[in-house]
């Protein structure tokens, strides 16, 4: 059993020192504050001059943004759903001796009892143990998890990396600590409760080897093994099926920047080191990394292999997780909009537009949705004439219906037909996302780097927090 200690200072400040423009350590720049304040002043002046017309324009802008987001997702789903002939399964034909060393990072925090199944799962991967470089990354002061890791990971290719206790206590910081110690040509990150398909690493090697060096990252599909654990788990599963089954493949086919999912990201290790790993201050470091790779001229695409995860099943837990994601998307948007011209230069006009619609649109739609609902109800139920009846009708009925329809489509790809009727209630799920978005917005202001804990292990009878 190896035991390693990482460099916490480089892990925390490496990105901010080398590429300060991409670090979320500074939430908002002075230039951005000036722009926001200017817009606010203009809005206040317009409100003083003609509040009715201002409200009309604001409603129209909100509705257009909202509908544009949903329509763009629909187009991505259409593109992502295109069936392409699968190449011969090269993964199965690579001889063991030709496989490279593959690093597997698994950040674990206060999850001692998940460690045995985690180690067993990783040992079951169809990859020679001699060529695996598994690093269980845990906080040095999390004695229970450290002890469990040291006890169960006593086998070839496994080691425990202890992260010196310091702020921020985030998953990306832990990964950054382990990154310099990784020995593999390729590197993947898994969560403790993940169950990747056995041949995932082989498939990733085959795809990397068949691709040019500019392909820096592969995102495997994520889905849940506990989709039947209630309404929230079912909706979450449909959400993930849509995201990883259609939306991300759609982005990949358009060759535009793709936000990564939190786990099962396979990297070329040298590229990851070159761009200074993950941003420890961004709470969706995965989404940010995908955009940052595009900014540096690298490509990200999807890997046709699935990792099964555990869906959160309680509202509180789900809200914590989703509000962190929403906050992270806001952080990511603010970081990459520090230099919009640079983003256009590196990602192209299409990439820039995609970034606005997919990253910006995600939290914008969630924030504006309840406002549009209120407007719709006010015009209909209370017969208040806001002069924008059509705007409210089209955006609320059309937008929410389209979102609901898209969610139901999520059940099709894997033939999980039993989940589709649940999708009818997607408009409720979207309102919950709005609750999380407002919570995320509030946290962005008061505690931007706070990592909302998600409880895992509920599906297996024990609750742990990551």
């Amino acid at each position, binding site marked *: 059993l190896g035991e390693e200690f990482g460099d916490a200072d480089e892990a925390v400040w490496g990105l901010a020192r080398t590429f300060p423009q991409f670090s979320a350590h500074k939430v908002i720049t002075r230039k951005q504050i000036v722009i926001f304040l200017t817009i606010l002043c203009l809005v206040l002046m317009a409100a003083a001059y003609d509040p009715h017309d201002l409200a009309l324009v604001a409603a129209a802008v909100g509705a257009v943004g909202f509908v544009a987001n949903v329509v763009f997702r629909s187009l991505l789903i259409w*593109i992502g759903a295109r069936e392409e002939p699968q190449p011969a399964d090269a993964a199965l034909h690579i001889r063991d001796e030709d496989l490279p060393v593959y690093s597997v990072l698994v950040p674990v925090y206060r999850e001692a009892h998940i460690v045995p199944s985690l180690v067993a799962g990783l040992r079951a991967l169809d990859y020679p143990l001699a060529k695996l470089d598994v690093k269980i990354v845990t906080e040095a002061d999390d004695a229970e998890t450290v002890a469990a890791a040291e006890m169960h990971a006593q086998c070839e290719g496994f080691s425990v990396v202890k992260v010196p206790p310091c702020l921020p206590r985030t998953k990306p910081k832990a990964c950054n600590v382990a990154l310099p110690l990784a020995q593999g040509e390729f590197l993947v990150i898994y969560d403790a409760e993940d169950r990747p398909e056995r041949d995932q690493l082989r498939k990733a090697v085959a795809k990397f080897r068949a691709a040019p060096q500019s392909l820096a990252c592969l995102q495997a599909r994520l889905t849940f093994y506990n989709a039947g654990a209630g309404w929230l788990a079912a909706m979450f599963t449909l959400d993930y099926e849509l995201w990883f089954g259609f939306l991300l493949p759609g982005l990949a086919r358009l060759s535009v920047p793709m936000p990564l999912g939190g786990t099962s990201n396979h990297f070329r290790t040298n590229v990851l080191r070159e761009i200074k790993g993950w941003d420890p201050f961004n709470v969706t470091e995965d989404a940010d990394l995908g955009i940052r790779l595009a900014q540096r001229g690298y490509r990200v695409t999807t890997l046709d292999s699935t990792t099964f995860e555990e869906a959160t099943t309680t509202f509180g837990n789900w809200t914590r997780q989703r509000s962190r994601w929403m906050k992270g998307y806001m952080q990511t948007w603010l970081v990459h909009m520090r230099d919009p011209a640079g983003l256009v230069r590196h990602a192209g006009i299409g990439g820039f537009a995609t970034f606005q619609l997919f990253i910006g649109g995600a939290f914008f739609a969630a924030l504006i949705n309840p406002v549009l609902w209120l407007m719709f109800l006010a015009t209909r139920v209370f017969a208040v004439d806001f002069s924008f009846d059509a705007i409210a009708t089209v955006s609320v009925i059309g937008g929410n*219906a389209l979102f*609901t329809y898209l969610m139901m489509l999520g059940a*099709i*790809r894997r*033939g999980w037909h039993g989940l589709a009727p649940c999708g009818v209630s997607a408009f409720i799920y979207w309102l919950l996302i709005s609750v999380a978005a407002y919570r995320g917005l509030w946290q962005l202001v008061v505690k931007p780097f706070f990592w909302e804990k998600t409880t895992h292990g509920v599906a297996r009878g024990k609750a742990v927090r990551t």
Partner: protein
Amino acid sequence: MTLGGRIGLPVVFAAVAALSITVAWLGLGPVMTAGAIPAAVLAVLMFARLRHGAYSAVAAGVVCASFFAQPGLAQHLMLPDGPVWLALVVFALAASGADAVTRPGVRPIIALGVSLAVVQAIDPIGVYIVAAIVPILVSLPQLRANGAQAVTLAVLVLFVPIVAAVLLREAPALALPSILTALGLRSAAVPAPISPFALISAVGAAIPFLLLPTISRTLRTPASVFAAMLTLLVIAAFALTAVLGARREAYWLAATVMPLAAVIASALKPAPSRERLVIMTSLLSLSFSWAAWSV
């Protein structure tokens, strides 16, 4: 893969609609009628569909040509306010429905739902088609055997037309017919009532194709059965709307029903005799129309 599948049916439709609207808007009718563009697209889609169904270029060409050679049909399809849009949408409906039956993927299901919503918005027969499509789909053996799949398909297929109907009711300004009328793509004038003779002529021309999946067990597939049932449904919807007082030109029924022959033919199981049979059926259908026309 069909042309529609490669490029994406919505993209094709959007491009055709944009081009046609531009032509109508600029008043280029004398040079190139707005109806000629969708008519050409319909021909290309029919041809591509047949080629995708493993027919030779000659056989696909014969089927398409026999459609356009129906008496008076080609010239009426070229009219900007003629039946070409309905024909195009019903063809898309049949093609996506057949694909959804064969392999219920996301794209055919979306295309089917959108086609239903559009046909419902542009023509009175749409309401009857929407009402009857789900019973037709779930009556097919492989969907009957899988209840959950049938429910999912039914919900997904009906969702888009229902929401479209609600939207049109709540925001009437979005109504497609009024937009088409405003753009000159739909005539505001009331045509003559459809004659029983035109009905018989069109049905007679369609019957040979309807018989193909019905009588030949070796050629029959669920998709071809679906397309044949949809053809019958379209004829019944036309008859019903005629009985209820709808007025339209005599060519509308033939123009709408005959392209479905390409969908039926393309869905037939490949067999040595299939191509010859389909060519003969096309010629038989064409002979019947011209005979009826002469009489």
